[in-house]
């Protein structure tokens, strides 16, 4: 094996079916610290199912999940978040009527006896946003309702970072964004990986994938049909795998830097 580090997350022969429908048929995937691992595939390929299993929302039926090399159980969202796996959903799940700090700490507020420790939360939120070089928001006390799509995405990602997560899964982070905002968010995704987090990026947008990903996995009808280093492939190749006109025998361990 020629990889530089053991993967933080490793999926081995994952299977999942809903009644008679096999959605995941023995899927392998690895995500490493400091890298952006892109997961692409057409609608219905099984991306969401794969992610929901990692988030602990819909447990897998078969196969093994290894976290830092150790087999783990992922049956509840709690187990996933305890391991440090955080999902940033496409619809963001932010409360418009709360400000940035309140959203970043939602459900995990810091308290002093019974009252909230606002000052501490505020300074930690500011620190995290500054580390991620999120510069477009003027105040951490702005209501989320007043933020642009890119800024909201930044807040959602920063929330994932705040909790020192080891794996951050981003579901279509640029789907609803304009050109400039997409660029901001992709920059943020890159910095997130550079800070040592394993980032799994789900996207339909090949430009985005090629802009930030280190490795690209392609799901096709519940099977991983390709696992490629970005430098060794191109748009046409990936589109071919996504649409099923190309395929390759995938041995995940062979994909190396």
């Amino acid at each position: 094996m020629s990889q530089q580090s053991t993967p933080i997350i490793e999926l081995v022969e994952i299977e999942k079916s809903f009644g008679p429908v096999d959605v995941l048929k023995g899927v392998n995937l690895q995500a490493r610290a400091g890298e952006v691992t892109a997961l692409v595939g057409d609608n219905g390929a099984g991306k969401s199912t794969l992610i929901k299993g990692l988030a602990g929302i819909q447990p897998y039926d078969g196969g093994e999940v290894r976290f830092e090399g150790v087999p783990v159980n992922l049956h509840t969202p709690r187990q996933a978040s305890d391991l440090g796996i955080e999902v940033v959903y496409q619809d963001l799940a932010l409360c418009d009527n709360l400000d940035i700090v309140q959203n970043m700490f939602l459900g995990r507020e810091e308290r002093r006896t019974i009252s909230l420790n606002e000052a501490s939360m505020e300074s930690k939120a500011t620190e995290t946003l500054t580390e991620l070089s999120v510069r477009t928001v003027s105040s951490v006390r702005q209501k989320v309702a007043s933020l642009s799509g890119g800024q909201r995405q930044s807040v959602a990602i920063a929330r994932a970072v705040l909790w020192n997560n080891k794996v951050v899964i981003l579901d279509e982070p640029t789907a609803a964004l304009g050109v400039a905002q997409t660029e901001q968010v992709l920059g943020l995704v890159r910095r997130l990986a550079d800070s040592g987090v394993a980032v799994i990026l789900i996207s339909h947008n090949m430009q985005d994938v090629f802009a930030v990903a280190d490795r690209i996995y392609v799901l096709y009808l519940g099977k991983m049909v390709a696992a490629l280093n970005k430098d060794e492939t191109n748009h046409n190749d990936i589109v071919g795998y996504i649409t099923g006109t190309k395929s390759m025998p995938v041995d995940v361990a062979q994909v190396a830097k």
Partner: protein
Amino acid sequence: MSEQTTIGTGQEGSLRDQVEQSLMRLKGGEMGSLPAVLGFVILAILFSSLSPVFLTAINFANFFTQAATLITLSMGLVFVLLLGEIDLSAGVTSGVTGAVLAVLMATHGVVWWLALLTGIGVGIIIGLAIGLLVAKVGIPSFVVTLAAFLAFQGLQLVIIGEGGLYRVASPYILNIENGNLSRSAGWGLVVIVILGTLLSGLGARRQRTNSGQVNRPITILYARTIAIGLLCAGTVYALNLERSFNPEHPLFGVPMVIPMVAVLLLLGTFLLDRTAFGRHLYAVGGNAEAARRAGINVSRVKIIAFTLCSTIAALSGVISASRTGSVDASAGRTIVLNGVAAAVVGGVSLFGGKGRLSQAAIGGFVIAMIDNGLGLLGLNAGVNLAVTGGVLLLASTADALSRKRGSAVVR
């Protein structure tokens, strides 16, 4: 939006910057209770020019005791309105509480405090039941509380009896609305309010300083303390004036109900602004799905909110019984819609996630003033209802327009 190198907290800059920021927020549609305050001032000027009695000491004190029931009920409703839900049965809950209180004392000879606790306990149980039906069974709150509204009217009839009326004789209960503080106790309240404002403000600043955060110019805190101090001092001064027409029976001082409702307001505001539960309540009202994914127990938050609403409604029933000195079978039947109107007039959103107890209180003052002023002018109940409806419509129009404008500014 221009690129900048640091992220602020909204507390930076000079006094002038802060004022500009506030004006910006206002222009952006975050008007809070400003329209209600303006409405209050306009109504006060109108009524004092139309009625010679309006600005008298006796009417001033009456105004507070009249408003107390409505304001209390309206503050209770805020907890439910913040969820985007409604409690149509809050008024009837207050009536049932009053009935339980009066009947226990009058016919069963129960000591006042036990009757009081039982009444409030009834409120808690009603709220818990409504909360469970809404959160766990999933029935819309409009339907659950409409059913409760009907059913509890029946319950109240059964407790009181057709056409019946029970006197409340306990001086402890009667004193809530009819007792007054001594003059010096009134001034003591002013001192407590001023010190409380100042010390809590300084405490918050020290906490921010300790964690390396910037504070607003301290002038703002001083100005705020002075404004609140003057308002309280003026109110206490007016309430300390002799207001009896009969020199044999002097009548002066701050009605006891005022500090009681004020304590409720402070406790509720602390719960909403400073505790995790309050934060979660706003979150559920803003985006319940986001709250759920953040690990918040949404059902639990809803059940607690409905329970708080009914409990506070029960308190308003006690205040009402104290004011009228009696409870009849229809007590509390019509007040709930005025309570909702008060909250909305004050700036609480019916869509959930936006509103404060103080806004409900200010809205309650506006509605109560319409009642009080038109009553003094000798206009009939029809005019009163029509004007209240008009004010509600005006307030919600202002809210809708400002929200439209706000979204236009943001995009």
